[in-house]
C-alpha cells in the first residue's frame, strides 16, 4: 500500500529538521577563536607540501566498475529469490545460466589481475 511509505518521509523530515537545529544550537554556545595554526590542514603540525588532491591509484576506479557490474547482478537476484518457489524448475535453470555467465566473467577478471591489489 503506497500510504505505508509516508511514515518514512515523516521520519526523514523529523531527522532532517533535528540535525540542522542541533548544529545551529551548537553554533550559539560554542567559542570561536580560530588562528592560522588551527586552520591549516592537519599534517601533524608541519606545513602541507604539494596539492592535497594528488594522483591516486587507478585501482579505486576498477573497484568502482566491478561494483556496478556485480551489484546490478545482486539486484537481479533479489526478485528471483523472493519468487523462487513460484518460478519452479524454470526459474532455477534460468538463474543457473545467468550465474554461469557471470562466473565466467568473474574468472576472467580474476585472471586479468583486476582483483589483485598491489
Amino acid at each position, binding site marked *: 500500500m503506497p500510504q505505508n511509505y509516508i511514515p518514512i518521509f515523516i521520519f526523514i523530515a523529523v531527522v532532517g529538521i533535528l540535525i540542522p537545529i542541533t548544529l545551529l544550537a551548537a553554533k550559539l554556545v560554542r567559542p570561536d577563536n580560530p588562528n592560522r595554526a588551527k586552520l591549516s590542514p592537519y599534517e601533524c603540525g608541519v606545513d602541507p607540501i604539494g596539492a592535497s588532491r*594528488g594522483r591516486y591509484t587507478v585501482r579505486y576506479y576498477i573497484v568502482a566498475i566491478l561494483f556496478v557490474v556485480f551489484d546490478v547482478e545482486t539486484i537481479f537476484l533479489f526478485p528471483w529469490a523472493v519468487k523462487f518457489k513460484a518460478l519452479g524448475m524454470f526459474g532455477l535453470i534460468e538463474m543457473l545460466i545467468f550465474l554461469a555467465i557471470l562466473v565466467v566473467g568473474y574468472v576472467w577478471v580474476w585472471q586479468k589481475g583486476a582483483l589483485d*591489489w598491489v
Partner: protein
Amino acid sequence: MLSIESFVAISLIKTVIALFVLLTAVAYTVWLERKVVGHMQNRWGPTRVGPFGLLQPLADGVKFMFKEDLIPPHVYKPLYMAAPMLAVVFALTSIAVIPVGNSISIGGIQTSLQIADVNIGLLIILGVTSLGVYGVALAGWSSNSKYSLLGGLRASAQMVSYEIALGLSLVGVLILSGSLSLREIVDAQSGTYWGVLPRWNIFPQFIAFFIYLMAAYAETNRIPFDLPEAETELVAGYHTEYSAMKFAMFFMAEYANMITVACVASLLFLGGWHGPRFGPPLLQAILPVFWFALRIFGFLFVYIWIRGTLPRFRYDQLMAFGWKFLLPLAIANLVVTALVVAIQS
C-alpha cells in the same frame, strides 16, 4: 481504517519515540564499548561521571556542543557542511522500516511496533545504508586534505566491495522465506526443526550468516576492517578535518549503522523477536521487544569483543578477502541453497 490526521500523528509519535530510543542506544553503545574494551585491556573504562560512568555519554554530548567547531578555509564548504548531515540522516533512516515486535493496541488503537510497515523493508534498508557511502566520500573529498582524501577513498572502495557480498548473503534467506518484508521474514522463522531447534535462518544459512557478519563489519568500518580510519597511518581518515558537533555526527552515524546491522542480523538470521512468552498480559506484550533487544545487545557485544581481540587487516588483504573469498563463497552458498530448496519442493 484510520483517518489521515491520526495516521500522521501516530507516525510522528512513533518517529519521536524511535529516534529517542535509537539515539540513547547509540550513546550507550559508545559507553558499552569503552567499558567492555577497558575491561578487556585490564582497565576500568569510564568510572567518574555518575555510577559506573553511566552519565559519560551525556558529558560527552555536552562537550561536543561546547567545543570550538573549526571550518578550515581550504575546504569546499557546501559539501563539507552537507557530508556529516547526509551520513547521519542515512544512518538513522533505516530504523524507520525495522519492526521491533508484533502489533500492540493502546487505548483501542491497533498499531504495529514499526514506523513504516512496507513490504520491501529489506530493500529499503539495503538502499539507504548503501547511500551512507556518500557521506564518507564527500567528507573525504571536500576536506581538501591528504589524510581525508585517502581515508574517504579507502572507505568508499571498501564499502562498495563488501556491499556485494552483503547483498548476496541475504539472497539465501530470501529464498527460504520468500518475502522482502521484514515482518514476514521473522514470521517465517517461528516454530522449530524436529521439535527442538528453533527455526531460525542461522541454522540452514550459517555460511550466509558468516558472510553477512564479515561484510557488515567491513560496511560499518569496524575493526578488523577499520582501514579508513587507521590511526597509525591516516590520523582519523575521512573525518580528520572535522571537529565538535560535525565530528559527533560521523560518530553517531557509525554507531547507528552498527545498531542497524545488529537489527537486520537479528531479524533475518536470529529469529527476530521470537522467544518464550509467559506471565501476565502486559509482560506478554513486552517480552518480544525484550528478546529482540537482547539479540541486538548480544550482537553489539560481539562487535566490541572482536574489536578488543583482533588486529587490523592490511589493505590488499582486505580487498582480497572481500573479492576472492567472500564473493565466490556467497555465490556458492546461494546456488547450494537454491538447489536444496528446489529438490525439497
